């Protein structure tokens, strides 16, 4: 049976037009999904691709990742560094997935460290044993899928 990969897209990612200013022009979530499907198909991974603005729904997806999937890629947008109760729930959910030795990679379309960021004030990212890919546009997902695939093969 094919390994099952879940890709979760967090709040606001249904509209990618704001990434134009980062040089990632004309991106839509449909294009991202298409690219991910193609990459997964070529590697023999079965894919579920989802997006939600709702935190409860995102938590449900993370719970499903623990039970139904072999690997997780998540674009948490700002959700990962909200520095709040939500953030604690989010990281503990991610940690639960990684504790099962399932590959988890956090992806971002733009380089989240690039624009107007004070480097001396670190951004929080997901905890647990998580990989991180940021700034390749649509290809952030592609790289993450390949990395997940290789990790699953090695496990």
């Amino acid at each position, binding site marked *: 049976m094919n390994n099952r990969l879940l890709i979760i897209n967090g709040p606001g990612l249904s509209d990618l037009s704001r990434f134009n200013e980062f040089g990632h022009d004309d991106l839509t979530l449909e294009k991202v999904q298409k690219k991910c499907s193609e990459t997964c198909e070529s590697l023999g991974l079965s894919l579920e691709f989802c997006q939600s603005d709702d935190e409860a729904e995102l938590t449900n997806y993370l719970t499903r990742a623990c039970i139904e999937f072999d690997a997780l890629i998540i674009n948490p947008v700002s959700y990962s560094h909200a520095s709040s109760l939500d953030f604690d729930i989010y990281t503990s959910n991610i940690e639960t997935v990684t504790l099962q030795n399932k590959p988890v*990679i956090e992806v971002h379309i733009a*380089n989240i*460290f*690039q624009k107007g*960021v004070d*480097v*001396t004030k*670190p*951004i*929080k*990212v997901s*905890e*647990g*044993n*998580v*990989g*991180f*890919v*940021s*700034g*390749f546009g649509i*290809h*952030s997902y*592609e*790289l993450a899928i*390949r*990395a997940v695939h*290789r*990790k699953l093969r090695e496990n």
Partner: protein
Amino acid sequence: MNIYVINGPNINLLGTREPEIYGHETLDSISKDCIKKGLKDGHDVKFMQSNYEGEIVEWIQHAIKEKIDAIVINAAAYTHTSIAIHDALKSFSGFKIELHISNPHLRESFRHVSYISPVVDAVVAGLGANGYSHVIELLADLQKSYK
């Protein structure tokens, strides 16, 4: 495409230094794998490693002068301290990728700040030694799709 893969302090100890964090692969085997992958698509991948900050700055300046297409940099501990490397990278107009074998954000708090991240195009961390070959593969693919 000409690609420099620049590695900072202690990366020469890969394979023996804290293998539970950095894995068992040596820099030599990683570089051989990447050079081979690059060659397959007609790319010239050069691996370099130094424990000296100034030498890393000079390599970046060399990349600027030689109009190298892309730099993949694992500045290791200098990531968190070096304004000199930050400045040098700023002057390099090719594609720049910051790479780490582990994910520094999950480790000691002194590794949570990177002077490299704001001046690169993309950041890859925590994918283990495989991160290098994934990045080289992606760069080769990107170039194909832009041709």
